[in-house]
């Protein structure tokens, strides 16, 4: 299949207009010794039904549809209202470029403006950007932003932050003379504040705190922000499960300076980890150091309201090596999905959604921890994920579950060798009571055996 719209006659006419005999002549500017002069060795062209067939076969090699899953850890199963797919797949949204020509991009620019407003409302912060790649790079961008603001070179990153996010922060900061210090967790599953206090000093740029954290435990953001501010460091909140913002206290009410995170939960399918949706919000005094695109309101020459990309001098295409970030293309269509998702759910829907997550997860948590051989590993309050410790190694528990076509969660051993008996279980609004109850029964059976 080719997607060329020229007839042979068109080509002839065009070549004649240009004054060359064949398209190959147009490549004479390329030195002969680096020309390929052979066909590429890739599979020969396929028709549409053949391509479809290939990918259907490929997808069938994935076994996920045969299992009920309790996996979370930064990628969450939630219901996506039909209107989200329907509206976001419109060509008018999917096929334009970045809205540089504002007059023919109002649909995109107004949607971004609404997205920014929704993120501000959810986080309780002053300003938000048009999106970042994902939660992990959002966390890294927040760290870099903090360093630009206060020019200090140490960042405190808790072990309760998603391990992948920690890895990305390490990658982004490795060449910039920044020291990243990891802070442990206590028996509640929250940041060990004694260790935090010990490591805070004049040279600390920021304290990062994920809530609900990687263990599903709700952190005391208020307290963490206070510790940071006492030492003139910034408080960065990471929200890896954005649905929690529907119910839990907003970062903006808890002294947070920069709130960032992953908004995959807002209408974006799991998709093996991407594309997802990073977001970032902050207090307006930091706007000059804020990374990424921003849509702003203005008027046209007739006085009608319109929207434009604004404050662009922060960005790479103008400030080049001194830009606040190198980000250019972001995750716009995912941000549109999130905007539609949030507006469809609305005030009541959002709250009910978050309520069902916290209620169902706590129901499951209470049920499981009463099973003989199971312990709640941490004492802190949880949102929609929790850690249980089992009498057997989690890997054994997991393989027993898999035989019954249930994925019981995520093994923590690979990230925390000390937690080899622990699993991270996620329960969302799509987990049915009967599946939770069955989980409990199976777990009972495994540990009794």
């Amino acid at each position, binding site marked *: 299949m080719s997607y060329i719209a020229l007839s042979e006659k068109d080509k002839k006419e065009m070549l004649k207009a240009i004054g060359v005999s064949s398209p190959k002549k147009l490549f004479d500017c390329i030195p002969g010794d680096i020309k390929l002069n052979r066909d590429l060795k890739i599979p020969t062209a396929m028709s549409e039904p053949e391509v479809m067939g290939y990918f259907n076969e490929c997808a069938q090699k994935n076994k996920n549809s045969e299992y009920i899953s309790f996996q979370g850890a930064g990628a969450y199963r939630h219901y996506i209202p039909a209107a989200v797919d329907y509206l976001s797949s419109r060509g008018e949204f999917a096929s334009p470029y970045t809205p540089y020509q504002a007059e023919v991009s109002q649909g995109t620019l107004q949607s971004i403006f609404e997205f920014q407003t929704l993120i501000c409302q959810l986080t309780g912060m002053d300003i938000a950007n048009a999106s970042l790649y994902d939660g992990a790079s959002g966390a890294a961008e927040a760290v870099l932003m903090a360093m630009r603001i206060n020019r200090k070179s140490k960042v405190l990153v808790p072990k309760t932050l998603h391990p992948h996010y920690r890895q990305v922060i390490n990658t982004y900061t490795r060449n910039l003379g920044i020291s990243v210090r990891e802070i442990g967790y206590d028996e509640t599953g929250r940041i060990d504040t004694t260790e935090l206090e010990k490591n805070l000093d004049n040279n600390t740029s920021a304290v990062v705190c994920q809530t609900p954290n990687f263990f599903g435990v709700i952190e005391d953001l208020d307290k963490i922000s206070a510790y940071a501010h006492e030492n003139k460091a910034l408080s960065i909140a990471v929200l890896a499960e954005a649905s929690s913002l529907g119910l839990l206290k907003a970062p903006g009410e808890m002294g947070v300076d920069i709130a960032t995170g992953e908004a995959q939960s807002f209408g974006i399918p799991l998709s093996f980890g991407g594309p997802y949706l990073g977001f970032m919000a902050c207090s307006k005094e930091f706007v*000059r150091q804020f990374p990424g695109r921003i849509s702003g309101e203005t008027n046209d020459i007739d006085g009608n309201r319109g929207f434009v990309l604004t404050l*662009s*001098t922060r960005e790479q295409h*103008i*400030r080049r090596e*001194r830009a606040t970030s190198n980000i250019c293309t972001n995750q716009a269509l995912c941000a549109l999905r999130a905007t539609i998702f949030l507006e469809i759910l609305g005030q009541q829907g959002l709250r009910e959604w978050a309520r069902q997550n916290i209620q169902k997860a706590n129901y499951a948590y209470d049920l499981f921890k009463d099973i003989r051989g199971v312990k709640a590993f941490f004492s802190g309050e949880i949102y929609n994920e929790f850690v249980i410790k089992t009498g057997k190694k989690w890997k054994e528990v997991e393989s027993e579950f898999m035989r019954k076509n249930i994925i019981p969660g995520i093994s923590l051993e690979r990230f925390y060798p000390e937690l080899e008996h622990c699993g991270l279980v996620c329960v969302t609004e799509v987990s049915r009571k009967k599946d939770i109850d069955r989980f409990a029964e199976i777990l009972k059976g495994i540990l009794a055996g």
Partner: protein
Amino acid sequence: MYPEDFRYTKDHEWVKIEGDTASVGITDFAQSQLGDVVFVELPEIGEELKSHQTLGVVESVKAVSDIYSPISGEVTEVNEGLNDVPEILNQDPHSKGWIIKLKIKDKSELDELMSASEYEKYLEGLKDEE
């Protein structure tokens, strides 16, 4: 156009001397090249500047330009008005649009700067290169 009592730099800043103090701004040519100024980043009072050191940044919608200090000295005043009304830089670059005042450290540095007529000639030269 360009006041006779000012001195000028190749980067299009001007200096006006009043005793031990120098006012610094950007020239009419600089503001016209930048277009509508939307933001000016100012230094802190008390900062010690060397000549050619960046003292601040002017931003228009689609351009960013460093402002270099024409001479060495300590910043004694900054034009706070630019924070709220950056367009003064466009409207009145040689007077109300001053950016900082400096306590002059070494008057001999002024000799390296251009006079008004030299600067105008320099601008003519730039036009020819276009």
